[in-house]
């Protein structure tokens, strides 16, 4: 056989880096999650780390919080970004400026966003509660109240991530032929009919991308929670990735690795089937 011009060595450097610094550690994490280790020596302990994970309330709570975080951020981004995108797909004169304003936080450092919102959400002096006070509402302690803190961080995550979702929707909206809407208007349909019967079915592929992307992003999220609450107050905003970090700095490397594996399994068990299911529901253009 003649040698191909697409030589095999083209993939060697890429796959070498990817295998050594990502695939190999991923495979190793399955093994090390079954051990107690200190980076030098390990002792095989079977499923002990996982047992601890689900028996310790703080750790179990992190699994629940991670799910709440992923589902809520993904849901809010999917719905709110669609509404904003439909609004900004119109002939609004300032639409490009508004799109840019909403998108910009996506590329700003998450730690910076966390710092700014920590101060905006300050219970007594913060701008948010000052604004609420003007309306006669007594603002809550956004990040200090254990029942509320997780949702406060979720709101900031949505604030930051909505621009990305909006841009995916806008790309999808621009691909829907204008004639469809015009035909419906000629037949006496109104704006709501257009949204319900044309936009919504045809935007499905974009919506699926938004759901999957923000869901996986939500499961893996770390920076914002860490910068805003560090998992507190108590364990109120503890999520899997913050557990991974805390167990690491406390020296429980096996437990930390087990946290990573649980996260990986959640992604595999939830995101992959979700993706398959959503893709089946798409309408063909």
């Amino acid at each position, binding site marked *: 056989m003649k040698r*191909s011009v*697409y030589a095999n060595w*083209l993939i060697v450097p*890429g796959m070498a880096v*990817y295998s050594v610094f990502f695939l190999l550690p991923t495979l190793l994490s399955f093994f*090390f999650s079954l051990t107690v280790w200190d980076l030098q020596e390990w002792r095989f302990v079977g499923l002990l780390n996982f047992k601890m994970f689900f028996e310790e309330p703080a750790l179990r709570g992190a699994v629940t919080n991670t799910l709440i975080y992923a589902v809520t951020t993904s849901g809010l981004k999917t719905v709110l970004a669609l509404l904003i995108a439909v609004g900004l797909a119109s002939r609004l004169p300032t639409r490009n400026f508004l799109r840019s304003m909403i998108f910009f936080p996506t590329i700003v450092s998450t730690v910076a966003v966390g710092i700014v919102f920590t101060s905006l959400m300050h219970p007594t002096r913060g701008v948010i509660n000052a604004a609420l006070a003007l309306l006669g509402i007594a603002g809550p302690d956004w990040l200090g109240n254990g029942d509320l803190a997780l949702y406060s961080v979720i709101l900031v995550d949505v604030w930051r991530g909505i621009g990305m979702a909006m841009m995916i929707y806008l790309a999808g909206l621009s691909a829907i032929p204008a004639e469809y809407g015009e035909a419906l208007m000629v037949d006496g349909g109104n704006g709501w009919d257009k949204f319900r019967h044309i936009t919504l079915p045809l935007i499905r592929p974009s919506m699926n991308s938004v759901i999957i992307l923000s869901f*996986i992003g939500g499961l*893996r999220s770390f920076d914002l929670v860490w910068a805003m609450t560090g998992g507190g107050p108590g364990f109120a905003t503890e999520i899997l990735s913050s557990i991974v970090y805390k167990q690491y700095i406390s020296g429980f490397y096996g437990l930390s690795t087990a946290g990573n594996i649980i996260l990986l399994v959640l992604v595999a068990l939830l995101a*992959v089937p979700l993706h398959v299911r959503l893709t089946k529901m798409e309408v063909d253009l």
Partner: protein
Amino acid sequence: MKRKIRTGVIAALANAAVLLFYTTPFLFVLLNSFKDRRSAAQMNMSWPETFHPENYADVVNVGGGMLIRAFKNSTVITFVVVVLTVIVCSMTAFYVQRRNNRTAKLVSFLLLIGLMVPVPVMPTIWVLQALGLFRHKLGLILVQTAVGMPFSMMLFRGYIASIPREIDEAAMIDGCGPGRLFFQIIFPMLKPVTATVIILSSINVFNDFANALYFLPGAENATVQLTLYNFMGAYSNRWNLLFADVVIICIPMLILFLLFNRRIVSGMSAGAVKG
């Protein structure tokens, strides 16, 4: 007429809402970064009574030029990661897009995994330590390159699909080997997508917090994001300086955004949708 008024009202409301929710935080940081320590601690939106641009100088000089060192570290890391990413991903993408064999399928499956699976923290540290790269910039650089590969590869692959195979064949007939074909003919044609990859991976690497936190601990190697985080702990009562730090760190991203707005948006959405 009635319709026109309604549209006008809706437009005004939309503008007001976006300005309220999206401009306020930025304005807030900017205003407070110029206040003195006591007024910044009030955390309100008032105009600074006295302007203190020296806050910025203070931030830069604090801790013996910690921030300057951090900018240097982040720049070096970002630059090397971007160069590696462009070379390695364009080559892999060319192979995967052109070949339709088992290897190509396996490679693209393995890269798909990387789009979803979280970074395996402890085992990565173990590997880095075994190679003597833990706590070294090169270690973080290689991890960042590996972690960013799936996304950049996908962008390259999408673009390469639009380059006709006839070009490869013509080059081959003219006696061009695989190396020359890729580096002298194909790679120069990838300029637009290369630009997108350069911008997007710069943003990612510069903004990265978690990987630097895990794989590059130590004060002398601290990246910009780590300095910001540590600063939050150490100067929690000096909000004016903290805000000035936030502004300084956001400026490079603002410049990139003003210059490459369209490219950033289209690249990020294309990558997201294909993933």
